């Protein structure tokens, strides 16, 4: 297996799918010629290899980029467009929320919108709240959208390939810090199913549900508990919509304890949804109150100590687990 960063894994997925299907094209701000050229970035080298017909650098026009995806998908192509940073979702959101998500339903099932919107989140770099706001719960709240948030390069590759082949609109959120954390990626071709959680670590004592950059953190915390004889099970949901609640519920029924962790702030965050599902369907299995570990309800601050305060860390998770074991 190769050791690749998530950006490289995304790059491989884009390449393979563009090679496989001539209807796949990519578009976004700086995806052809960008201000940063690094082989660790997702669209590196694609312009050279696929040409300007299929690798479309766009103006700074998020509504037009998302509209491009909706229209091109309606007309039979498979667009993969990029929103530079997650807070700019708001500029594209009319096209995503009111159009991509709803037009199939409005057509009575006649039209399909096979599009992917890749969204990058820049938290952890001191970029501040207008570049680092996690909006996954907004997207997951929209019926008609699938929402994918991979935690490893291998998952990112397999999930993006599935997303591109999916006939529904998929919001694919990449945490940019993960671009620079290499992990094993299989050499042979594979697809990772959308809507299937993965147990990233088996354990019998506590369930931690996590996604994206929080999975790695949870694994480290679990190692620490293991030395104390407490086995933490880590469920990486991988996709928020559709949500694999069976895997979550089975794990909670086994361990009787639950912590949900996400980087997004607490109020209206997706941990609330998962908690509610567990309360509705597995309350009797809970041996202790569940816990949420999330960012606080503030905009993501820029200064390094402030940003570190915002982003949940191992200590936050460890103390939440300690409270319930």
């Amino acid at each position, binding site marked *: 297996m190769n050791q690749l960063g998530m950006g490289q894994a995304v790059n491989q997925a884009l390449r393979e799918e563009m090679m496989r299907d001539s209807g796949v*094209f990519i578009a976004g701000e700086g995806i052809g010629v960008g201000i940063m050229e690094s082989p660790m970035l997702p669209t590196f080298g694609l312009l050279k290899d696929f040409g300007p*017909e299929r690798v*479309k650098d*766009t*103006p700074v*026009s998020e*509504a*037009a980029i*998302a*509209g*491009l*995806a*909706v*229209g*091109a*998908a*309606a*007309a*039979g*192509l498979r*667009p993969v467009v990029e929103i530079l940073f997650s807070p700019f979702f708001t500029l594209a959101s*009319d*096209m995503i929320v*009111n*159009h991509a998500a709803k*037009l*199939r*339903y*409005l*057509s*009575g*099932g*006649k*039209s*399909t919108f*096979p599009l992917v919107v890749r969204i990058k989140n820049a938290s952890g770099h001191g970029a501040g709240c207008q570049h680092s706001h996690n909006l996954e719960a907004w997207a997951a709240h929209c*019926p*008609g959208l*699938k929402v994918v948030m991979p935690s490893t390069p291998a998952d990112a590759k397999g999930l993006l390939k*599935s997303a591109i*082949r*999916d*006939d*529904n609109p998929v919001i694919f959120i990449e945490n940019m810090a993960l671009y620079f954390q290499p992990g094993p990626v299989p050499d042979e071709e594979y*697809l990772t*199913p*959308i*809507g299937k959680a993965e147990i990233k670590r088996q354990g019998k004592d506590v369930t931690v549900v996590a996604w994206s950059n929080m999975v790695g953190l949870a694994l480290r915390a679990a190692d620490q508990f293991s030395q104390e004889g407490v086995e933490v099970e880590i469920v990486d949901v991988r996709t928020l919509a559709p949500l694999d609640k069976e895997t979550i519920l089975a794990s909670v029924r086994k361990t009787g304890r639950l912590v949900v962790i996400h980087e997004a702030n607490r109020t209206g965050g997706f941990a609330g949804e998962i908690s509610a599902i567990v309360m509705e369907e597995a309350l009797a299995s809970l041996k202790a109150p569940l816990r949420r570990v999330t960012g606080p309800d503030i905009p993501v601050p820029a200064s390094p100590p402030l940003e570190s305060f915002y982003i949940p860390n191992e200590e936050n998770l460890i103390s939440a687990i300690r409270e319930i074991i």
Partner: protein
Amino acid sequence: MQITKEKKIEMLRSMLLSRQFEDKLTELCKIEGKIPGMMILCTGQEAVGSGVCAALAPEDIIISNHRSHNHLLARGADPNALMAEIYGKRTGCNKGKSGTLHLAVPEVNALCTTTVVGGGPPIAVGTAFAQQYRKEESVTVCFFGDGAADEGSFHEALNLASLWRLPVIFVCENNLYAGAQRYEEHTKVKDIADRAIAYAMPGEVVDGNDVTAVYRAACKAREIAVSEKGPTLIECKTYRCHGHGEADLQLYQPKDEIAAWVEKCPIDKLRDEALSEGLISNDAYEEMNRKMNEIVENAVRFAEESPFPSPEEALEDVFVSSRIS
């Protein structure tokens, strides 16, 4: 450009069908509980959709807005399926999911009708991109109102369409009102067509009550688009003879203004022309009128006799059941 007799008759028929269809709706929506939702009509504006659609080939795509009935009928949508949809019936073109406001008829390449003011132009960029990408000799038409030209999405879409020379015809239906606002109260520029200059594309003002003028302008724009010279902005000056919706009492529209425009009826204009040119006899015209009436009456009967969807059908058509290969 000479317009054939057949073309003129086709446009006359198309406008008449639209007028009959909407006159019927005016009548029906006064009956309590008959038609759900708002009723937004284009009575008096028929020359726009009928003139533009007469210039199109079957493979061309149209993107419509909330005032869509004429666009869709002129494009050849089945009046029965439209009427049933307006009634909210299962046999409607969108199985009751869209109602009168978002009618999508992919069978005639009316791929999307959006009621989000300004929602159409970015999507038209996408469908036109798909046409260019596949090297088709086809174009996209996007219909929108004067109010939509105030939205940012309109400007993003024109810029991108022009930058990439996309085969799209932006058709602004300037009916002098956006809701209760008269044109001068919402836009400073005298002609919206002038905005084409800012995006380096041709812009043309046409008499939107003269179907032959609209047709000519659309033919020219289509020619430009398919010869890879990019988009055109056509502004059709017309008038909203009814209120914004049928519930609107039109208190803000001067009575003499309405009366003057009703006099400029585009159907009467073409009829008189056709009569004086000997293209049609009085009897033949009356026969055509009767025929259109019959089509509309049949559509109403079809809609009334059709069943409503069962409540659980609301759960269908959100997603394409995954077809991942």
